[in-house]
């Protein structure tokens, strides 16, 4: 199982719902990396994650995890996967002590000592029922549980949403530690791009069920730029050269996907660096091309 290049390989994933279609999504999560899975609410992130975890059955497409088909080798794969959701999936009356027994009886490679270590590190009480935990504590508990069975792949669905910056930072730090082992990988869905900007190696943008962009984060940030110009300068820009343009009273901001080429082509205009957040916003409006 260690002989694989990508922790996750998705090709042509399609899933149709009434009023929503996840359309032909393909991307890879390289082994030993953390991928940020970005998109606005309802973009299809959760549907993709559910398809990866075989919680929902895809209409078409192929998903390989650790090089194995995710439906044929479902349980072998799941022994090495940890899923973290935005809400704690354990009953309020349970405590960490009971969870240890439950998960210890489920995962072959469950490590009690590791779990206790995480509990101590996160200052989580062993006997307090989860119902009395704060949101941050619940998330830390999920992460402690996820990391205690030596999973090779961590899949997180909006796990850091709603957490305060201190807790988020602490959690992100843990993920970086987890990635010290080059066999471990993380797929982290979020619409908080600042977190992903800090830790992600690669990012995948998704919107309205369509894949907009996927690749290494640094390449994406480096290749994209925002041209700042006046309305008259904007008229001179070739529409094929940009993703979308934001028109305001003060001028026009144009997102380009080939910063170097555009800098040369439109050398008289100011080219600013951009962020994942900005890239996401401009790509989401790419259909409109111009927006305010």
């Amino acid at each position: 199982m260690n002989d694989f290049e990508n922790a996750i390989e998705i090709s042509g994933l399609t899933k149709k719902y009434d009023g929503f279609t996840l359309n032909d999504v393909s991307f890879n999560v390289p082994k030993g990396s953390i991928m940020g899975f970005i998109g606005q609410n309802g973009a299809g992130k959760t549907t993709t994650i559910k398809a990866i975890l075989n919680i929902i059955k895809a209409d078409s497409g192929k998903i390989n995890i650790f090089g194995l088909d995710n439906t044929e080798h479902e349980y072998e794969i799941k022994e090495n996967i940890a899923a973290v959701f935005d809400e704690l999936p354990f009953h309020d009356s349970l405590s960490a002590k009971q969870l240890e027994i439950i998960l210890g009886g489920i995962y072959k490679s469950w490590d009690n000592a590791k779990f206790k270590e995480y509990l101590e590190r996160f200052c989580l009480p062993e006997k307090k029922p989860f119902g009395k935990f704060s949101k941050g504590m619940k998330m830390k508990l999920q992460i402690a549980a996820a990391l205690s069975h030596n999973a090779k792949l961590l899949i997180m669905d909006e796990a850091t949403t709603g957490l305060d910056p201190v807790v988020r930072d602490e959690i992100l730090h843990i993920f970086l530690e987890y990635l010290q082992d080059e066999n471990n990988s993380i797929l982290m869905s979020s619409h908080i791009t600042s977190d992903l900007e800090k830790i992600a190696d690669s990012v995948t943008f998704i919107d309205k069920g369509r894949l907009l962009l996927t690749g290494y984060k640094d390449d994406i940030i480096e290749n994209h730029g925002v041209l700042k110009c006046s309305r008259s300068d904007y008229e001179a820009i070739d529409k094929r050269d940009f993703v979308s343009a934001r028109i305001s009273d003060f001028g026009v901001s144009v997102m380009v996907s080939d910063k170097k080429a555009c800098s040369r082509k439109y050398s008289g205009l100011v080219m600013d660096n951009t962020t994942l957040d900005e890239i996401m916003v401009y790509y989401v409006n790419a259909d409109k091309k111009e927006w305010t």
Partner: protein
Amino acid sequence: MKGLIYRELYLTRKTYISALFTYLLITLLLVLINLSISFGNLKDIISAENGESTKNTLFYLSVIIPSAILYLMSAANFELVDKDMTTKWLTFQYTIPVSIKKCALVKILIITVSIIIAFVLSMANMALFCTLYGRSPDRILMGVLTFLMPLTALGAIALVSLTLFFRNSTAAAMAILAAVFAVAYPLMMKLIMASESDLDSISLMPYLNRLADFTCFYPIIAIVTLAIGQLVLTAALDRRDNYRIKEKKEAPTK
């Protein structure tokens, strides 16, 4: 699988403990009534009017009521399914390396064990009251208590499956009640018609006698019911379309 069994037992322990406590309390109460009939104040009252008939009724009630409570306990864990849906455990369950078949088997195992416990305790209860009322074990009572095994298995499986189907335990319980009413109402009507509208002459004895004729088959029927239940529960738990339906509504707005 051990972890799942522990989880089910831990989360339903209060229901089982309270059912056992109620069973013991009611048994104690019925023992006290018996003692009063034999040696106390009730002795004179009962002897004065229809002594044997009242004692007979009390004996049957003493055996059946605590046993029924125990059997009801076996179907108690359907509420856990409701909680599992609220806490999203059911979604999490799909991420663990345990097959849906085994998840269903855990529920069936717990129902089976609680039915066995209910049967054993109801037999102990019958033995106790047979001693107290000076009777030998009753064929009809044996029939009724054994008949409760497949009936409880069927009820428990239906409740869990319907809770998964409706995604709501109250709706499941209402559906079962409606089904029970639909079966019981014509039977009651038939009984009343047979007694020519004379309610006092209604006798269940012929029916109970027929029920007792098949006593030895009930444990087999219970096993078959549980085996079918395993298939039904596996299908119900594997209804990932359930989540599709939910997502149809959620996906565009989330």
